[in-house]
């Protein structure tokens, strides 16, 4: 085999790779997204992707969107905002996708939303809830989640009704947890409760023992964490090790996931948290989605999966109303949309911020996650106070 032959055959192989994928999918509607499949947000990112994937499968089985098959292009942003931004740039300019779904987590969404704004490309954002994202005058990011600032309101009101006063507030130093924290501060002030301890921690923090020793010295009534899964689990473990006892433990994200119970076992009992969604909510298609998801992936969907699934339906409704995937028409349709799907109501204000969806509080009871607030959606009665470590 001479060198020339080798070169030309190599070249033809390369060319085939470049030409053929484009040719075979010319008629598909391509939806692009990047979610964390590695790093801190991997677990939740993967759930979101699987939920969205289920919508893709369903719509293709139903005959497609506007009569065309939907194809999903997705990448792993490694839980890093800078990687997320690069990937959205790539999705828009390189992959030339028709529609966009947002990444998981508020801080990656912060970065990605700047990229889509630059290209004036509407993005349905499933995994973000920090209101900071919608305070920059952008017109292309459409949120599904209830805002982070509202996460702890019901739990704080409940604490107030039990006569609790002193709060310890700890949170990660990124967009979403800071959003939760600022909501807690506002609400606590309204209710006349005091934040006697406040501390931010880094994204990679795994050791909270020094923090817990300080909280213990302050003799607080409730601990509220603006957290994700790994940090809320670590905090509870170390709270037990250091025998920190308060009346209410409440964390963002972590307790809303099945892993929280798996990793902590009995120590999860009584911990409160939030959820954007549960398969038990009375919403059209929620129960069916829960069953189908469980059959396919082997576990109950958390709200991240529900969000991914709901994002598909929001996108579908908007594209149908717009009658095409034209960016300007889809954007206008998203602004005008007021719909209820399996994930809940979708209605945004003039900035794209979600204003139609309520917040739900959950609690781990008997090894299961139950909705406890608002009472009309509750699946169990709230347990109070948190049982002392010594008496479990």
């Amino acid at each position, binding site marked *: 085999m001479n060198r020339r032959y080798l070169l030309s055959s190599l070249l033809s192989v390369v060319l085939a790779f470049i030409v053929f994928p484009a040719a075979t999918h010319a008629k598909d509607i391509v939806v692009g997204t990047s979610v964390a499949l*590695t790093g801190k947000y*991997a*677990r939740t990112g993967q759930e979101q992707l699987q939920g969205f994937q289920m919508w893709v499968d369903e719509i293709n089985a139903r005959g497609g969107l506007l009569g065309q098959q939907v194809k999903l292009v997705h990448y792993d942003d490694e839980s890093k905002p800078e990687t997320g931004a690069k990937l959205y740039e790539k999705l828009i300019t390189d992959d030339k996708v028709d529609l966009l779904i947002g990444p998981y987590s508020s801080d990656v969404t912060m970065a990605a939303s700047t990229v889509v704004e630059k290209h004036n490309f509407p993005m349905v954002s499933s995994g973000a809830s920090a209101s900071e994202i919608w305070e920059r005058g952008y017109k292309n990011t459409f949120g599904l989640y209830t805002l982070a600032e509202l996460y702890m309101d019901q739990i704080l009101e409940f604490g107030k009704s039990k006569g609790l006063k002193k709060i310890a507030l700890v949170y990660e130093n990124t967009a979403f947890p800071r959003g939760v924290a600022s909501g807690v501060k506002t609400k606590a002030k309204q209710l006349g409760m005091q934040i006697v301890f406040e501390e*931010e921690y*880094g994204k990679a923090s795994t050791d909270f023992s*020094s923090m817990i*020793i*300080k909280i213990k010295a302050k003799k607080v009534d409730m601990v509220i964490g603006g957290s994700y899964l790994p940090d809320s689990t670590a905090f509870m473990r170390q709270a037990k*090790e250091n025998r920190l006892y308060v009346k209410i433990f409440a964390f963002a994200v972590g307790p809303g996931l099945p892993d929280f119970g798996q990793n902590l076992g009995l120590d999860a009992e009584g911990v409160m948290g939030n959820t954007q969604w549960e398969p038990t909510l009375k919403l059209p298609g929620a129960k069916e989605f829960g069953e189908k998801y469980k059959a396919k992936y082997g576990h109950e969907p958390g709200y991240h999966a529900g969000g991914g699934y709901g994002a598909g339906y929001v996108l579908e409704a908007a594209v149908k109303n717009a009658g095409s995937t034209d960016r300007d028409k889809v954007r206008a349709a998203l602004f005008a949309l007021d719909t209820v799907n399996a994930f809940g109501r979708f209605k945004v204000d003039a900035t794209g911020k979600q204003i139609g969806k309520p917040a739900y509080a959950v609690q781990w009871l008997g090894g299961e996650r139950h909705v406890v607030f608002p009472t009309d959606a509750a699946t169990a009665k709230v347990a109070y106070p948190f049982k002392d470590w010594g008496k479990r």
Partner: protein
Amino acid sequence: MELLEPDILLQLLIGGLLAGMLYALLACGLNLVFGVMRVINLAHAELMLVGAFGAYVLFTVFGLHPLLSLLIIVPLLFIAGYYLQSVLIERVVGRPMLTSLLATYGVSIILINVGLLLFSADFKSIPALQGSFLIGEFSVSMPRATAGAISLLLTVGVYLFLERSRLGKAIRAVSEHAQVAAICGIDVRKIRMLTFGMAAAMAGAAGVMLSVIYSFWPGSGVDFIQKCFAIIIIGGMGNFLGAFYGGILLGVVEAFVGGFASSQWAEAVAYLLLVTVLLIRPTGLKGAARV
């Protein structure tokens, strides 16, 4: 200010010492390898995670308690380290520093990705040895106390081995001057393989201990390896005892900074310590390269 009360100070000190012992076990292994063959093992933290995931598998599949799994994982990692040295690292010893850095970095990338394939990117933890016990007024975390005690035992054990035994003396001889050691009839190649095996075993043990304290995923190594670098530079490059003191120092300082400032500062303190030590005593607390 309630923070200055003696019982809080003591509680912070206990936490810091326990964390420091685990750091010390990990960093001593890294320094041992550097001392003997002037190779910085970038895959050291991944070897630790091999130990952690090993304990996880043994616990979830066979229900084996992490403390018992030490008896399996430590010898296995010794063997793995021994052969890793003979197959790969041996080829880069004595070459320019960059060669060995690249080789061990490659090992670390391979291990991380094998970990991602086998275990995905989920955080794992082992729900064994939970809770705490009380010493008077102080609650001492059960997993940390166990990890601290075992780490201390292993580190001191390896130190005594190096100081007292004939083989340990041979290791120190190779570290001081490989050529002279070879002339004296020491099988330098074999010593290096033994050393790397020991370092891998120490990393594996640290991994098992880590698995009962923290949650971990295949990419967790980076946080630890960075701290380890800081520790060995603070303690003295290649100096076994230096890494021990450096580890304990970092654990205690982190706990106090976390207590008095915030945990965000605690994460930066390793590097602040590093810069301070480099300015005042560039060879580290115990001086460089003496095993």
